[in-house]
């Protein structure tokens, strides 16, 4: 990395080894990327092409092209433009680390473009009408359609699930961070045997199969109006189907991981910092607020990313405890598969899967450094 501008001699390789190593890396990248790339391709074709046995058909989509859905130079140009704007925005953010007006502009353009994709077909056809098909700019190149995405997002109102996912992930991240930060700090600063045992038990909890826990919640959640009525009277809520109930459950399941990660982060913050504050007469709470909070944000951001991933990727909990109205994206996709009675349904399911993956893609792009540091944080400390 940047601390080592010159390659250490011991890591230098002979030419043949270098070739081997680079070849290996390229194969790995291909393997890592291929499944995602392929489903993205499939989602852009009509079923006949998408499920074709010939890979070239899936890539170029002759059937889709014949059906009148294709991209031309103009479309490609627009897509390339969009990607570069988004990329510039991300790069800019990574350097500046703040949301300046320039960033907002990039963000605005990117999102606006994304929405424009839905009216994409219209735009493209009008350009085509203007120039005619023979003009090189507008000659159909590759069969491609956004129809499945339109059908998923607009007709089947997938945006509702998107907002549910946003709500649940936002809730989980904020609760698990608030609670986890306090606990992580406490555990890092306490040398008592209790702290050790809490951490060990948390490790065992982390290893528990989730299906065991989750099935235990169902009857309680469904009947909560009854058993909560002694406490809440008439207004006792039914927990089943409530996003905030899921948020608490997910945040709790996530606690063992969060406190381990934040504990090792706080251990890296020198004790002298808060001890100095304590000598100045602060209590532990005050020391935490005055000294620790200002310096803890990188660690919290990293832990937050992992909470986000857990909440966003969760299937088991949300599938069982949320009803259709409040369903998040990942379990909702199983609806597509259970319904997949036609091949079009199947491609729509693929399109929904791609839609779910896209935000993660962006997230990794933006927060790559934090993710990497988070993964190594727990490790380096042991």
């Amino acid at each position, binding site marked *: 990395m940047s601390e080592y501008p010159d390659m*250490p001699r011991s890591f230098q390789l002979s030419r043949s080894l270098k070739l081997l190593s680079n070849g*290996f890396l390229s194969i790995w990248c291909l393997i890592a990327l291929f499944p995602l790339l392929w489903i993205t391709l499939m989602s852009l074709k009509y079923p006949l092409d998408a499920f074709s046995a010939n890979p070239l058909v899936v890539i170029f989509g002759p059937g889709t092209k014949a059906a009148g859905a294709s991209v031309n130079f103009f479309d490609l140009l627009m897509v390339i433009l969009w990607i570069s704007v988004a990329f510039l925005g991300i790069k800019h953010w990574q350097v500046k680390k703040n949301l300046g007006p320039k960033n907002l502009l990039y963000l605005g353009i990117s999102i606006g473009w994304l929405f424009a994709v839905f009216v994409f077909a219209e735009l493209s056809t009008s350009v085509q009408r203007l120039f005619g098909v023979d003009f090189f700019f507008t000659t159909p190149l590759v069969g491609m359609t956004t129809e499945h995405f339109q059908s998923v997002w607009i007709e089947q109102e997938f945006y509702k699930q998107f907002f549910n996912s946003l709500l649940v992930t936002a809730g989980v991240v904020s609760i698990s961070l608030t609670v986890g930060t306090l606990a992580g700090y406490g555990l890092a600063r306490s040398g008592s045997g209790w702290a050790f045992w809490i951490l060990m038990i948390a490790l065992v909890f982390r*290893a528990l199969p989730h299906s065991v826990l989750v099935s235990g919640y169902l009857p309680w959640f469904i009947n909560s109006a009854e058993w909560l009525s002694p406490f809440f009277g008439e207004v006792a809520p039914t927990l089943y189907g409530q996003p905030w109930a899921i948020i608490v459950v997910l945040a709790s399941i996530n606690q063992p991981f969060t406190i381990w990660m934040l504990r090792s982060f706080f251990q890296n913050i020198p004790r002298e910092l808060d001890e100095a504050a304590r000598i100045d007469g602060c209590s*532990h709470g005050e020391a935490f607020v005055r000294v620790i909070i200002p310096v803890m944000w990188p660690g919290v951001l990293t832990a937050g990313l992992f909470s986000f991933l857990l909440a966003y990727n969760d299937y088991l909990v949300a599938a069982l405890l949320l009803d259709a109205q409040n369903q998040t994206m990942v379990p909702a996709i199983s609806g597509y598969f259970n319904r997949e009675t036609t091949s079009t349904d199947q491609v729509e399911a693929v399109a929904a899967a791609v839609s779910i993956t896209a935000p993660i893609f962006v997230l990794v792009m933006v927060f790559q450094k934090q993710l*990497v540091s988070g993964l190594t944080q727990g490790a380096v400390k*042991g």
Partner: protein
Amino acid sequence: MKNRTFIGFVGPSLFLMALFIAGPLFSVVWQSLHVTQPVYIQVETEVCTPGFLSQKCTKETQTQPKLDENGKIITETKFSGFESYRALLKPELIFKHISERNWLGLTNIDFYKALRFTLTFTLITLPIVLVLGLMIALCINQALQSLRGPIIFVSLLPFVITPVIGALSIRWLFVGDGILSILLEWLLKREIALFAQGWTIEILMMSYRVWHVAPFAFIVFYAGLQTVNRDSLESAIVDGATRWQRLQLVILPHLSPLILFVSIIHLMDSYRVFEEVIGFRSEAHVISLQWLTYDLLTPDDTGNRLISRASASSMLTMIGIIFLLFFPLSRSWREHKLRRSG
């Protein structure tokens, strides 16, 4: 830190974990030792099925749970000891099969079938993940500075992607005439049906898991490589150590705590293998321990679920996990005591 302050900091987290993790866990322990059964009555029932023109009505005696005056099913719960565990472990069948040297019969009992697969899955993927992760880390470490970022980005994707979707996308590539099974058929010049027999599905499931987890191992090792002591590497070169010797004598010892860390995490995660069974629809051929629990908990059409046996099954799964974690845990306990005394 005083105990009260400590509890102030840790309390909320403990409360959440106690309520939503420890609570269900205790109920699982309790349920595995008890059975709850409805009180049944035999009812003469007339049931009609619509035909095309007229209905077919049949009178039959049905077993139905008895309801109390509030319309709730009357149940009775009794202590059953280790009956549920016995129903799961089938000790009498084990002795029979072992005395007859019938190993196939042994692995056809659900629990041992699941245990066999879970263990092979965990133990085979572990070294592959470690080696692959290390290889990628070593290779990236010598790649061009400007390429490292993009390569790390691409490598992270399999790790952060939604597991359900990852498993599905791999399945799409292989099932029936999927693009990769056609490629395999072309390479091997023969017809292949990857989902037709157990061992090919097992290989697919393991490959998926390696694809999914190797990035994690790689990132951890990559970070570790940045802190290798360069002087000892240089002096190893001066001593005439080959590349392999340097890896063996300098780099691997330096990475050993990280290898342990990745191993523990991987053991924990792959021991509860579940998504693969669902994603690859492998239950006809191979099942895992967590799937067994899940299957016992899933109600059938008529609403039966076998809660006691499912609880026993998850207890056994948990005992397995504690067993797997025993050595790393006892090691850190010793270290903890050392730190306190020292």
